[in-house]
Structure formats: structure tokens, C-alpha cells
């Protein structure tokens, strides 16, 4: 064993100056909270998502194609591109904007009082054909006049990709599809179909003449139909094409715009509407919960702290506010100050703070009885100090949770209100009205619904996670435990 030197065992002695020295920088409550928040990976991811969404919402519209006579891209309608699924752009044929709608072929010389055929004599119409170019703007069918009938019925069948047997359609062995046109005059021997055509589809048209019994009004149809089949070409109006490729002529082909989220019932780009809508929703998401909580906090804390008769009165007011039919308020606000962001903010916050007030009051009542508050009070602390030092900080977690919990509700309420027509002025897009609009296509094209819904969901998840992490960060009891 090596001998130990004696000096190692000498007492150090007291150094008065060093005893109270804090070797690390002092952290205020908030600094500590932010430090811990920064360490939380999920919170940072959430914050990034929220930041990203806000940035896209704020700056995204700058990158939209140029506005056209005052109509921003998000509101630009394209009647040649209605209700389409997500796409990166189709090959399109440019057509004239003001192409005349083909006029019906009506034989004015035909004698409308001509004797009617008997039901058994009815035969299919002759020379059924498609004139011109078939596109979503119209499929112009024409055929030879069938003398002695009362009119024609035009059916349209969506031809399945697997094909079908045209003979079955002639004989009516399979359903002829949508009865799109009913022509009550034998003299009209044409029909222009444009009803909700899908540019990628092939259609089979059947024309069936019928006679109407003048007495009973009963109709008899011909047993067999004339059938014609046509595929559509994908088109774009010249004015829309100009913004993609300036100076493009009618008849040229070009690649259309990408619609990653598809288009809506008026041919507007859904992604552009989502981006444009972000501004409104972010504003509402920040403003409305803050307002609600400010009112609820003041009211609840006042009620809980003062107690007694005032408390009872306050709680009755909360009950009234909670039960008041809020739709009534929305309608009156719309009538009084018109549609728009202001009335939406007032409508969403004015009557939805009651629940929060009740929650705060309960907490305050509970905390008032807690030992440290009692002790502080015994030591003679004024109410203001009780609030600032004891009750306030302890309410912080609740406030943050309630604030972040309120955000999805605000966005959902906005959506519900725009569904009822009480939302923003038209055609201002918001997430609510975009997603609600997309919901109607759920059963037609689920992707079109789930894409915007996913954006909405992820953003709200980010708010939720951030709220949770903030609450944990602001709770000093949880320090070092997460």
C-alpha cells in the first residue's frame, strides 16, 4: 500500500464569496419552459408543421398563376374540368371559349297533327350519329325524323372498361342507362347532351321513339333502340389555355395544369383553395380560442375568487350563455354586420366561452382550498398576489390545454357554419368549406376527400401535440421527468 500524503486531508476552509455562487446561469420560469420545449422532439416537429402550413398559406398564393380580371386562381372556375380526380395534367385540345351551343335540328315543315303510328309499328330511328367533336362541352346526336311518333327518348350508358355487347343495348336486354333526354316533339331530330360528362369516359347512346296515347297519356316505346358509341376528347377553353401557353390557337394540344388534389364541382383547383383557405383558418385558429379563453378566464376566475352570491349569479349567466341557441346568434350577426371574418370571429367566440369559464371556476375553487394558497393567505398576501403567484401559474397548464383543444373545434365550427351558409362571404375558400365540399365526393372518389381531410388532420394533430408539449413544459413539477 502506497502511503497517502498528509496534505490531501487538510480542511478546505470556508470561502464566504463562493458559497452562494451559482455556477449555471439562472433560468426564469419561461426560459426553463422554452428550454424543455425545445428538447421535445415532437413539439419541434409540430411547430415545424404549423410553421410550414402558415408559410404556405401566407406565401403560397403568390406562386399561383396570374389572376384573371380580378379573379384569383383559387376562385377560377373551369367548366371543362369539373369534378376531376387528382392528376398531374392531361393532354388537352384547345377549344373556343364562346363556341356556340349547337341549335336543335327542328323540322318546321313537319306536320305535328300527323296521325300517330300504332305501338307495334314503332321502329328504331335511322342514321343515328354524333356530329362534330364529342367533348365535355357536348355530344351532338342527330338522326332521321321518324314520322308518326310523339317523341324520342335519349338514353346514355357509361361504357365499362371491359366493354359490352352493343346488341344487348339495342334489344334492351341490359339497362340503357340514364334517360338524359326526353324530346316531346317528333320534329326535333337531334339532342345535345352535355350532362355531367366525364372527359375520360366512353358513352353509348340509345334513341328510342315513343307514341303517347292522346286520351290516357300512356306512352309506348319502340322495342329496339338505335345505338351509337363515342369516346370524348379532353378539352380546355382558349382563355384558360392562354395562361398556360400564351398565344395558343384553337385546335392545338397542350398539357393542362396539374391538380394534385383534383377539382371541385365548379372546376376549381382544390389544392389552390386549400392553400388560399389557410389564411382564414390560421387566423381563426389563433384568434377565436384566445378570445374565448380570455373571456372565460376572466369570468371564471372572478366568479371563483369572489365566491358567494356573485359566484352564483355568474354561474347562472354561464348557464344562459351555454344554452342560448347559437345558430340564432349567427343569423342575427349576419343580418346586422354582414358576412365576413369579423362576424365569424364574434359568432364563434361570443357564446362558446362558457364551458371554459366553468372549468376555470372549478379549478380556482379547488385551488383556493389548497395548503399553499391557504398558507399564503394566512401570511397576509393580497388577492392580486394569490392570483399572480399561486393560482395563475397553476392554471397555465389548463389554459394551454384548453387553448389547443379549442382549435380543432373552431375549424370544425367554421366548416359547419359554411355548410349552413353562415360562414364567409363567397367565394372565399376556407378549409371548412373545401373539406365539406369534398365530403360529397367521398363515394365517388374517396381520394378526393381524404387528401384535404389529411391536410386538415395533420395540422390539427400538430396543434394538439404542441399544446400537450407546452403544457408539460410549463409544469415545473414535470421537470426532468419527461
Amino acid at each position: 500500500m502506497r502511503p497517502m500524503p498528509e496534505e490531501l486531508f487538510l480542511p478546505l476552509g470556508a470561502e464566504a464569496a463562493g458559497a452562494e455562487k451559482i455556477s449555471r446561469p439562472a433560468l426564469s420560469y419561461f426560459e426553463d419552459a422554452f428550454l424543455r420545449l425545445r428538447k421535445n422532439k415532437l413539439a419541434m416537429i409540430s411547430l415545424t408543421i404549423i410553421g410550414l402550413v402558415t408559410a404556405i398559406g401566407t406565401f403560397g398564393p403568390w406562386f399561383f398563376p396570374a389572376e384573371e380580371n380580378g379573379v384569383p386562381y383559387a376562385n377560377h372556375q373551369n367548366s371543362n374540368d369539373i369534378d376531376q380526380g387528382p392528376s398531374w395534367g392531361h393532354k388537352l385540345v384547345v377549344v373556343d371559349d364562346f363556341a356556340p351551343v349547337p341549335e336543335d335540328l327542328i323540322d318546321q315543315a313537319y306536320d305535328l297533327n300527323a296521325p300517330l303510328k300504332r305501338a307495334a309499328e314503332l321502329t328504331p330511328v335511322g342514321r343515328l350519329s354524333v356530329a362534330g367533336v364529342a367533348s365535355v362541352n357536348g355530344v351532338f346526336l342527330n338522326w332521321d325524323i321518324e314520322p308518326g311518333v310523339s317523341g324520342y327518348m335519349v338514353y346514355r350508358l357509361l361504357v365499362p372498361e371491359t366493354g359490352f355487347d352493343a346488341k344487348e343495348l339495342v334489344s334492351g336486354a341490359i339497362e340503357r342507362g340514364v334517360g338524359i333526354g326526353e324530346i316531346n316533339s317528333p320534329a326535333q331530330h337531334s339532342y345535345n347532351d352535355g350532362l355531367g360528362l366525364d372527359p375520360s369516359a366512353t358513352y353509348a347512346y340509345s334513341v328510342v321513339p315513343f307514341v303517347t296515347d292522346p286520351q290516357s297519356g300512356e306512352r309506348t316505346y319502340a322495342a329496339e333502340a338505335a345505338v351509337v358509341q363515342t369516346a370524348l376528347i379532353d378539352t380546355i377553353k382558349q382563355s384558360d389555355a392562354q395562361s398556360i401557353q400564351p398565344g395558343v390557337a384553337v385546335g392545338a394540344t397542350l398539357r393542362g395544369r396539374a391538380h394534385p388534389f383534383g377539382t371541385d364541382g365548379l372546376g376549381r383547383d382544390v389544392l389552390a383553395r386549400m392553400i388560399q383557405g389557410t389564411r382564414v383558418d390560421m387566423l381563426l385558429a389563433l384568434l377565436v380560442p384566445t378570445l374565448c379563453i380570455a373571456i372565460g378566464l376572466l369570468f371564471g376566475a372572478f366568479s371563483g375568487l369572489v365566491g358567494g352570491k356573485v359566484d352564483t349569479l355568474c354561474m347562472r349567466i354561464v348557464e344562459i350563455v351555454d344554452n342560448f341557441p347559437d345558430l340564432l346568434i349567427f343569423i342575427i350577426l349576419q343580418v346586422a354586420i354582414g358576412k365576413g371574418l369579423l362576424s365569424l370571429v364574434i359568432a364563434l367566440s361570443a357564446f362558446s366561452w362558457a364551458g371554459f369559464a366553468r372549468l376555470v371556476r372549478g379549478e380556482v375553487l379547488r385551488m383556493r382550498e389548497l395548503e399553499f394558497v391557504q398558507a399564503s393567505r394566512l401570511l397576509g398576501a393580497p388577492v392580486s398576489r394569490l392570483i399572480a403567484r399561486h393560482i395563475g401559474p397553476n392554471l397555465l397548464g389548463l389554459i394551454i390545454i384548453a387553448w389547443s383543444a379549442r382549435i380543432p373545434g373552431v375549424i370544425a365550427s367554421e366548416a359547419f357554419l359554411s355548410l349552413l351558409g353562415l360562414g364567409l362571404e363567397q367565394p372565399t375558400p376556407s378549409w371548412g368549406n373545401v373539406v365539406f365540399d369534398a365530403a360529397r365526393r367521398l363515394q365517388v372518389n374517396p381520394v378526393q376527400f381524404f387528401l384535404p381531410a389529411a391536410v386538415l388532420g395533420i395540422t390539427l394533430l400538430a396543434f394538439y401535440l404542441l399544446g400537450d408539449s407546452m403544457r408539460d413544459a410549463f409544469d415545473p413539477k414535470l421537470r426532468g421527468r419527461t
Partner: protein
Amino acid sequence: MSNVLTWGFLRYIGQRLAMAIVTLWALATMTFVFMRAVPGDPLTRTKEIPAAVRANLEQRYGLNKPLWKQYIIQMDRMFLHADFGESFRTVDRSVNRMIIENFPASATIGIFAMIFGTITGLGLGIIAALYRNSAIDRAAMLLCVVGIAIPSALIAYVVQYFLAVFPLVKLHVNQDYWFRPVGWGQFRDVILPGFTLSLGIITMMTRYMRSQMVDVAFAEFVRTARAKGASTFRVITLHQIRNAILPVVSLLGPIFVGAISGSLLIENVFGVPGLGAAYFNSISNSDYNVLMGLTVFYGGFFIVINLITDIVYGLIDPRIRFG
């Protein structure tokens, strides 16, 4: 428990009930004022009713009387005779009948949603808190977000489509799928609308329960219990959950009233014969009596439930005394 049946307690209940009537009256008065401020009246139609006919109708419904008289008549009828009057739209059905006949359906899905949502929410919240920051916690969160992110009316379509029209899981009753997209009268019909309605409740419950559980987990009494050598199970059930559940109880009242007051869109999609549509129509049709009747009915319900919540809260929290 011994503190419950005292004179102080009974007096407290009495006071609260007396207060309830004053509150209801104030609610009714406010509703009356706002209702009349909306343009148009119950007799505004797409095709204008001729003046003579309109005069007869106004006389029949008392709409020709001065506004203050109408107010007094309505208040008198409601508060002194428990009669909410007749509907302007469904002319043969009084508002009382409407409530009797259609409230049960709204209440049924509400109660189902409440029970299912509370149990699921509490369970999820507890598990999420016990396994903080684990995959389970995140999964629970994700579910919550789905519950709130997408308005329940949209969820209704998704639920109907994926569970009843083209079910992902095919359960059969005879030849039909087990869930019907639309229908009412059998227990299975309660599940889809009830489930849709419960999503919001699950979300709220999970969040609050999780946050309360986390709070309680670091409380002194929990540490003491552990130090005394109580089993983990005992600590969780007897100490943590029992204490964490307290503040959550105060949420139940408003949630319950929210759940049973009928959701227009959910009832509409699943064909539930509830009061949701009546409530909505009453506003868009300016159906004064229905709107007033339902507001006061739900308001009364709300106040009673709140009272019960307060009493229950007092029973399970020994720190609160009535007096």
C-alpha cells in the same frame, strides 16, 4: 357521506332549483328578443300568403297582438302551464308532443355515445398516461385528432360508407349486413350514430383524463403510497385514477347535455327520428314556439344535470361542503 342529508344540503338544493327557474326565464326572454329580431316570420313563404288569409292566420296564432302581449302569453303558457304551444310547421303536433315523441331517439344515441365515449375515453386516457410517450400514447392521440379534426357530420358519411354500405368487415344478419345504413327501431341502429357522436366525447375525455393522470402521477400522496409499499395496481386504481377522475366528472354534465340534444347531421344521415332536425328547422323557419320550447327544455335539462354533477362532485370529493 354523512354530510349529505342535512338541512343545509336541502336548502342548497332548494335555492338552486329556485335559481334555475329565474335562469330559465332569463334564457327564454333573451331567446324571445333575438328570435323576433331575425327578418321574416313564421308566415313568410316563397309564395306570399294573400293579405286576408294572412290576417286570419295571424289572429289564430296571436301574431297580431302587440309584442309585449305575445311575450306575456308565451311566458305564462310555458312557465305556469308547462305548455310550449303549437308548432307553426307541423301544425297538428304541439311542441310538448314533439318532445315526448322524438326526444327518446336523440336521448338514446346520446346516452349510448355518452357511455361508450366516457368509458373508451377514460380508458384511453389512463393507458396513454401510464405509457406516456409510447406508441400507445401516440395512437390514442391520433384517434383523438381524427375525432376532432373532421366534423362529425363528415365522419357520419365515412362511417356509413365503410361500415354499412361497403363494409370493411362483413357481419351478416340473414342476408343483410349487420349494420344498416339507415334505420331505427333495433339496437343495432343505435351503434353507428352513437359511435359517430361519441368520437367527440372520446377525444375530450382522453385528453383531460390523460392530463389529469399525468398531474396526479407526481403528487405526494402517490409517492407516499408507493413508499408505503402499496402494489402498483393499488396505487393506480385507488390513488391515481380516483383522484384524476374528479375534475373530469365536472365535464360530464355539459357533455351529456350536448350529446342528447340531437345532432342535425348525424340524425339526418342515419335516419334517427330525433329532435335535431326539428331544432334546426325551427331556426330556419322562424318557428317561434318550437325554438323557444326546445331552448327552454334543453336549458332546463342542462341546469338539472349541472346540479346533479355538482352534488355528485360533492359526494366524491370530501373537500366540498354544501351549505
